């Protein structure tokens, strides 16, 4: 019987065809290929919904699907190769959920682009829609990947699309530079990722995510002392240490792609791209790829406490670090960029502290509300004639109510205000970090503390942005007479706003704990699936191998949950309140001067860019110039030296050729004498 799973390849291929169509035929089509992209992503969305329903068990019998589709290399009969490199599909609750998110956001972004790109009369639209199509295809390919190599390959393709789309306005100076930076920084992370992939193959002989022969399963068996013979650790390390190394190597790619400290610097620059691209790539999906990867191979990470601790700590630190930078930014998209970094920090924090479900939950809610916020920002930018400076806005609330209310919904979700979706997910992240930290991990507590502190800053910068943009009095003429937006902008905003409000309800943990109702739908969703890929299995692993245990504050689990939720909500409201008092006035002023010298540090993003640019420009280029001098001077100098030695000796030796007959005769005579003497000595003539 033909089921949804048979059409999963089509989810990936449809956007790919739209890429081809837009690239080659786009200029002959109305709307520059947009319709092809919209059709394709709509098709993918429908198929994804079908897939999700199937995974949920509504339509068929099989609820998960794992199938190798194509042998990329090494599949020959009798091949000497130790393992095959394959492409395959892995559809389980996690990937099907991600499929739904990606296709939905991609579809909405395509629609929104009609308003943002087509209506604004941009040129090069076929290129734009081709990029979007290729991006969607790559991201979906990454999501359905059933092994690490395939994941890596699509991960890289996603990076390519990001490069192409950030640099879409290539005729200006800044976008190509930002595109280059984005690709380079993520490439630096991918370098470690690639070593990790290669190391996984070297260690396990497979890179499959799921199944008995998958590498998380093999690793678990090795650590449990069974079947360690199949696992080949390198450098004489014991399995635990080596798995930690491998995990950290793969994590390099995650840190790069998910813009975690210290490889986060590309993301704010990436805002040079068109805003729908920012929404799709740099908020909802591509940046999620890193986090998704950790979730995908969580069975492996859960085995190594060191890796988990590092993930958690990096996540917590990034959450706080990025949030503090977000508070002083002037451009609306910059604020959103730093908030994106910060929010992915939360997801990493959750993953590192054993909160697989929390991370997935936040991934989902964040995708909706951040896409919403970016598209809302896009709407504002259209209205403001592509002026992104919030200090030139103000008072847009009355002139663009749809945008305002949707944006507000997203902001409330982002700030984590009850009962918007962000509240539920962020609360669960912090709860997981707290309980596992209390269970005996000071490092997790520290990460939790940073995450908690970041909640305050999140509330502050979010509402600073809202107030500066929409409240008060218009500060410029464009803000007084904004450009209108059409249905194709408002529609996606409305859809996402609804989701941003309600998405949290699928997993209201505190409510469930309080009332005892079975409403933790996401928990149930992720708890089923292929064995070894379920959240229950993961919590066993973190408990058994990473020694994560649950500690509580007063009142047991319920009390802890409530306290945690109340504290974070309180901090978020405090931040929002501070923003309200400072910026919700008719003529807001910059308060950054009060920060003193911290202001410069924050404006300069803690000089992160400076040192990375210094590394890339001064150090690397300096070394390369030195190497070039060395090469031209010494290496090539030796080569040219040899040639000049032979030329010189030639010019010396030829002086024998004097042209004077007597000299030749003398040489002849001397030669004859020497020859006679040698022959005589050898032949014994002189004896």
């Amino acid at each position, binding site marked *: 019987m033909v089921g949804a799973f048979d059409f999963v390849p089509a989810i990936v291929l449809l956007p790919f065809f739209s890429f081809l169509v837009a690239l080659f035929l786009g200029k002959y089509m109305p709307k520059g290929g947009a319709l092809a992209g919209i059709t394709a992503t709509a098709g993918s969305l429908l198929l994804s919904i079908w897939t999700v329903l199937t995974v949920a068990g509504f339509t068929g019998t099989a609820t998960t699907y794992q199938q190798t589709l194509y042998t990329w290399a*090494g599949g020959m009969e009798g091949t000497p190769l130790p393992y095959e490199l394959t492409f395959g599909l892995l559809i389980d609750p996690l990937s099907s959920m991600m499929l739904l998110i990606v296709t939905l956001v991609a579809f909405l972004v395509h629609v929104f682009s009609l308003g943002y790109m087509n209506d604004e009369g941009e040129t090069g639209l076929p290129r734009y829609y081709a990029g979007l199509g290729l991006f969607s295809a790559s991201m979906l390919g990454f999501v359905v990947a059933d092994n690490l190599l395939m994941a890596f390959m699509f991960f890289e393709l996603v990076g390519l699309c990001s490069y192409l789309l950030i640099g879409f306005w290539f005729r200006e100076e800044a976008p190509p530079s930002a595109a280059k930076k984005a*690709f380079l920084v993520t490439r630096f992370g991918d370098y470690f990722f690639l070593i990790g992939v290669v190391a996984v193959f070297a260690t396990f002989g497979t890179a499959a995510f799921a199944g008995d022969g998958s590498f998380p399963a093999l690793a678990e068996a090795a650590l449990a002392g069974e079947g360690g013979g199949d696992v080949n650790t390198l450098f004489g390390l014991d399995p635990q240490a080596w798995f930690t190394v491998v995990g950290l190597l793969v994590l390099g790619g995650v840190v790069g792609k998910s813009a975690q400290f210290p490889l986060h610097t590309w993301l704010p620059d990436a805002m040079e791209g068109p805003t729908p691209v920012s929404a799709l790539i740099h908020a909802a999906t591509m940046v999620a790829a890193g986090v998704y990867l950790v979730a995908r191979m969580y069975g492996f990470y859960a085995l190594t406490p060191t890796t988990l601790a590092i993930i958690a700590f990096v996540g917590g630190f990034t959450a706080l670090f990025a949030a503090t930078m977000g508070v002083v930014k002037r451009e609306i998209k910059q604020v959103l960029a730093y908030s994106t970094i910060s929010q992915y920090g939360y997801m990493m924090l959750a993953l590192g502290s054993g909160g697989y479900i929390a991370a997935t939950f936040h991934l989902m809610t964040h995708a909706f509300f951040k896409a919403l916020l970016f598209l809302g920002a896009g709407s504002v930018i259209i209205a403001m004639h592509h002026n992104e400076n919030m200090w030139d806005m103000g008072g847009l609330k009355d002139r663009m109510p749809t945008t305002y209310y949707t944006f507000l919904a997203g902001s409330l979700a982002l700030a984590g205000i009850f009962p918007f979706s962000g509240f539920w997910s962020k609360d669960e992240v912090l709860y997981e970090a707290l309980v596992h930290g209390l269970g005996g991990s000071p490092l997790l507590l520290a990460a939790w503390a940073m995450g908690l502190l970041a909640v305050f800053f999140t509330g502050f910068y979010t509402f600073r942005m809202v107030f500066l943009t929409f409240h008060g009095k218009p500060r410029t003429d464009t803000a007084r007479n904004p450009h209108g937006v059409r249905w194709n902008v408002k529609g996606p905003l409305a859809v996402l706003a609804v989701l941003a409000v309600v998405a949290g309800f699928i997993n209201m943990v505190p409510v469930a704990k309080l009332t005892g109702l079975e409403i933790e739908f996401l928990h149930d969703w992720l708890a089923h699936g292929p064995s070894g890929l379920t959240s229950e299995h993961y919590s066993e692993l973190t408990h058994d191998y990473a020694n994560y245990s649950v500690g509580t504050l007063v009142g047991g689990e319920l009390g802890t949950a409530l306290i945690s939720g109340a504290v974070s909500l309180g901090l978020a409201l405090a931040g929002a309140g501070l923003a309200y008092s400072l910026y919700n006035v008719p003529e807001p002023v910059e308060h950054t001067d009060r920060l003193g010298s911290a202001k410069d540090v924050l404006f300069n993003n803690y000089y992160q860019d400076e040192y990375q640019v210094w590394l890339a420009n001064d150090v690397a280029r300096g070394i390369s110039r030195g190497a070039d001098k060395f090469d031209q001077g010494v290496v090539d100098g030796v080569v040219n030296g040899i040639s000049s030695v032979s030329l010189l000796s030639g010019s010396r030796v030829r002086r024998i050729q004097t042209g004077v007959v007597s000299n030749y005769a003398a040489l002849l005579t001397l030669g004859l004498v020497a020859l006679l003497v040698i022959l005589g000595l050898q032949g014994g003539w002189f004896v």
Partner: protein
Amino acid sequence: MIIEALIAFTFAAALVTFVLPDRLAGRGAFALSLVPVLGSLYMWSQFDASGNALLGGQTAFETVIPWLEVAGYEISWYVGVDGISLPLVVLTTVLTSLAIVSAWTPIQHRQSQFFGLMLFMEANLLGVFTALDFFLWFIFWEAVLVPMYFLIGVWGGPRRKYAAIKFFVYTNAASLIMFIGFMALVLGLGDSTSSFALPDVAQALRGGDLGSFYGLDANTLRVVAFAAMFFGFAVKVPVVPVHTWLPDAHVEAPTPVSVMLAGVLLKMGTYALLRFNFTMLPEVAVEYAPFIAAIAVLSVIYGAMLALAQQDLKRIVAYSSVSSMGYVILGLVAYTAYGVGGATFQMVAHGLISGLMFMAVGVIYNTTHTRMVGDMSGMADRMPVTTGILIAGAFGYMGLPLMAGFAAEFFIFTGAFQSSVIAGNGLALFTAAAMFGIVIVAGYLLFAMQRTLFGPFRLDTDYEVGPAPLHDTLPLAVLLVCIIALGVAPEIFFSMITDAVDPVIGGVLQ
């Protein structure tokens, strides 16, 4: 007989082209060069070899005709292909045809000689990749230098004579050393072989028949011969620190010649390394693996660093070839199926990708008459198709998945990482170090692209810039399609390569 027919036809085509009028030479040479392409594709379709031609495998299209006898050694016309050489034969014919098309625009004088020499070179290259007798092979090997010398020296840039002489003398001197090394081996084999046929020599050497020669015992002789041959081929590859002829040659050579130089001629070096050093003397390769791996890593990283410092687009691609060829050495020394197979695959992949890059740079040069990064910006505005393909090629060079370069590099990395050729997984560390090349390559290509292709349009030379003609961009597109095809389905070549590579690695590492 198809190989003979192919080579003979190509020689004849070269002669015909020599006497064609200049006006027709380009078109004529292209038409003639299509025959070898079809021939090689036919060979591919009829390919039935298995195993390694040198190590007792079944060789396809084999011909043995006794030719001479010198000092008790038989010299034959002995040709055939196996899974290692066939991809290179196909690469040669395809790339020559495309290079000929790409020469239509830039070559504006002495066309008939130019295209004749290109075809002459193709014939000799086919000989190099198909010959299985050392003397025959050596004749072709040396004969390749002659057309290359003239192609650089006559149609090159301002310093063409320096570059041509440097190229010729450097590689020729290296060939001499290699020749001495190989002859010492053959003579050291004594009565074990009575011919210079590579299979005989290889099997005798792997059989442990090496005796002493001229006061050197078998082990010393092995090492000395390995070193001599390694040096000889390393110059051709080229490997740091004997690479300095390459940038000069590339910069001075006209674009189509650069395409051939980077695309095929460099592969002669790696092909010969695989056929001679790594097939015949695996013990030495394993013993000195740390040293060879260090050279490979040095080539990768140092070559890439040099590319980062360059301002001339062609120099950038030239140095990055040094870098990419380092990967091949790394793969070869791994002695795993993925490593050696990947190295062979990289020969083809790099041939296509570097050919594409040089061609694309050449197309830009044809219109702008400058290759300096600082002299132009915003070319994407005026030459969208060329730029698009150049970007695609550059990403192929950076190892973008689903393009040939990634497949090759991944095979090499995964093969080298798990190789036990150095005790204690030492090669894994070398591999990890070499892999950093993928970051640097992205660095210099992205920097160069950002500065030349993007930003506002500006050009420091006074030329009218418009889209390139179709016959300039079509070869680029064909190459790009090939690269993507190989990247999506590397098995096209990789299965036959691994089949042929298996005997080489067999028994070397436990």
